[in-house]
């Protein structure tokens, strides 16, 4: 087990390093220049010395290797640099927006799991074809419809027609919990639909697989009621494959849901990333992308490690190996 953990951690660190190189290189390949975006665009001619001075100030006149080493060295020290434009530390900018993204992610995951797990479980217990058809339909629609379409439909119904909920904005939970919940419901449900559909798909498939296992027949033979069989034996074993999907979802949620944040005008890490892209604010952008990659890698690592804890078969296999 220890070797397994160590191997996964080392692999994750390697992936993170490769991600940092890829992020750094790709950003500099994109057309556009932050110095031009910052100084240019007006009807007055900006002196070329201003561009040179700014490039020097931002370190952009140094070699790419030097720039990368300088950046990654700062990252390892916890210094992610300053925005080229606002000159705020990148960590400050992230902290200001992270609350919104975290609240949205938590709410979306909660609603998504609340939708998918009970629905799949009930479907496994009840075995009603009409209910199964509803679940299949929900899964198909949820996976095929883009998030922004779901978001716009919800805005029209609940915001414009019924005027029940606000269609945009953000209020932090600490400032006003009730208003915060109101502003997070629609975007969270939008994301939850996209989350619930694949979880439901995997969970239903997994439940069906586990339900045909010999030990389940044994449990049934021992006289347990159907719901007892599902809840005590089928569901715990069927959940394990769905964990991978949940890990991926958590990673992508915490990276910032750009589309949903834009549709609902909700300031978060996703919109911070889009602003940085428009401005070519390399300092902010490379940190955000690295953060997103890091969250993804770490959540996958944690899920993999959780497998070892939840599934005794993996522990045994590991010991045997």
């Amino acid at each position, binding site marked *: 087990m220890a070797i397994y953990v160590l191997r996964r951690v080392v692999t994750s660190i390697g992936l993170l390093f490769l991600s940092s190189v890829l992020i750094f290189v790709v950003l500099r390949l*994109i*057309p*556009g*220049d*932050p110095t*031009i*975006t*910052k*100084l*240019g*665009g*007006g*009807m*007055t*001619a*900006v*002196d*070329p*010395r*201003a*561009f*040179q*001075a*700014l490039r020097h100030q931002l370190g952009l006149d140094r070699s790419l290797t030097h720039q990368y080493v300088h950046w990654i060295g700062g990252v390892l020290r916890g210094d992610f640099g300053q*925005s080229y*434009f*606002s*000159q*705020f530390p990148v960590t400050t*900018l992230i902290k*200001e*927006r992270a609350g919104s993204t975290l609240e949205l992610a938590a709410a979306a995951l909660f609603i998504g799991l609340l939708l998918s797990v009970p629905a799949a479980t009930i479907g496994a217990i009840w075995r009603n074809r009409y209910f199964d058809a509803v679940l299949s339909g929900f899964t198909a629609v949820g996976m095929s419809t883009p998030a922004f379409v779901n978001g716009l439909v919800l805005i029209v119904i609940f915001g414009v027609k019924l005027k029940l909920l606000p*269609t*945009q*904005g953000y209020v932090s939970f600490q400032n006003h919990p009730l208003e915060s919940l109101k502003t997070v419901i629609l975007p969270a449900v939008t994301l939850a639909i996209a989350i619930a559909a694949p979880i439901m798909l995997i969970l239903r498939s997994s439940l069906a697989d586990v339900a045909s296992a010999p030990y389940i027949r044994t449990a049934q033979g021992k006289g347990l009621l159907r719901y007892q069989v599902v809840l005590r034996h089928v569901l715990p074993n069927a959940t394990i494959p769905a964990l991978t999907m949940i890990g991926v979802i958590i990673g992508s949620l915490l990276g910032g849901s750009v589309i949903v*944040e*834009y549709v609902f*005008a909700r*300031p978060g890490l996703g*919109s*911070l990333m*889009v*602003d940085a*892209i*428009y*401005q*070519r604010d390399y300092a902010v952008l490379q940190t955000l992308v690295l953060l997103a990659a890091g969250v993804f890698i770490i959540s996958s690592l944690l899920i993999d490690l959780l497998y070892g804890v939840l599934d005794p078969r993996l522990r045994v296999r590991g010991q045997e190996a």
Partner: protein
Amino acid sequence: MHRFSSRLKVAAFGVAVAAVAAVSLGMASSDGVLGAANAKATQTVACTPNGTLRYGLAGGGVTSLDPSVGGLASRTVIMPLLFPALTALNPDGTVRPDLATKWKVSPDGKTWWFYLRRDVKYANGRPFTSADVVANILHDLDPKTGALVRTYINDVRSVRAITKYEVRFKTGSPRANLADALYLAKMADLSNMATLATSGNGTGPYKVAGYVPNQVLTLVPNPYYFGPKPCLKKISIISEPDTTSMVTAFTSNNLDMIWQFPVTAASTIQSDKNATIIVPKTVATAHVLLVDTTSAPFDNVLARQALSYAIDRNAMVKASFLGHAQASVANDPLSTTNPAYNKKLPAQTFNLAKAKQLFTQAGVKPGTSFTYWAQAGKRPEWITNGEILQQDLAKIGITLNIVQADPATWLARFDPHGKKYPGLIVASFLSLQPNPLLGLGSALNGCDCNWGNVPGTKYDQYNSLVLKALGQSDPVKLQASYDQLQVLFNQQAPYQVIAHQTNLSAAQKKVVGAWEDPSGNMHLESARLAH
């Protein structure tokens, strides 16, 4: 490529600005004293701060509080609120005293004295003195700063604090009214350069209470402000992700004012009985097409004239701007509402046969391709303009490929000045200064069309005309100079003016006192909420 003398160009441009302003304000008397008495004043109305004004921007909010550097035009709203200058702009484009109460000029026009208010403090309580003026002007004049105002005051050779409240400027050439240019030189607190972009410490009616870049900037009354108390308890400048969400927020009363909304939303806002559209008294902004006048084929004036005749401006105003713009008749930087507009200019109306003839003479044969370079997302009217132009050019055998790029990619293709972009027709928007010579001087100063980068072109003649205009005090002769400049611009067409249109802004009817200047910038210094 040999660059034309930028110093002469910029100096002439700066002098031109002052010359025109002097005419409009009234020239100095023989003893060189110019008056605050001649300037119109738009003072804030004294009142008790009340209410919060929620001001919406779209597609890019306030990214920096450093008043010197360029960047997004959306920042201009905060300048008069945080950073006054020695003079301030009036709605009609003239200037009035602000941090300076009066000024005088020597008979030769090369030495200026500005006398400062003695009761001015920054928002952190630090007194404002002539040393701050000197520091700010030198900071703006430093080429490494990249200050936009440098172009307009570049002939300032020295600035010196004579006393604690008296500043002397010396210019390299006679300036009719330096005061007119100095409204652009904002007075920031340079005592701590590390916080220049983040603190927003100024002497204006408001101070920064909260700032999240590109998200929200919160302003509250500055207790040290020297003028009448501002009328708002708080101003929140809120960045919306796009124009659609901004308009939605406005129509659902989540915003009190919005700036630069799309023309497609005009009818919705007009039909809202609680809203009003704000327009300036005159318009000094225009949608244009830029070409590289130093690269083939548009280094040939015939090709540029051909392009002008190929533009169906009326169709573009109707389709793209839904009538909320004024089609340029004679391809003139000045709009017809400008008092200096030359009414006798030959029109360059849509004429494909003439366009084809001129293109042929310029060596542009049927089968030639150009690229129409526009911004993605932010200016849908540019795409419509491009489609109209594409259809029209196709009729004379020229292919126009429309390419949309994100703002940074779009800008980097043809900026900074001097960059070559052969075969490109760039859709752009010019926000010019209110007075006539500034509008005409945009071609002089170096639009991204590179006109003036090659000696021996008609640009030299244009430059000579500007220099001649600088020395003119007689209004009739000055207007004659403007007329000649406009004729030359009409003939040379360094860029194509499609239509004059200002930024469309709107406010809930409870908002009074806000106004938009001819350059399309919103002013909230006098804004208040009516009960």
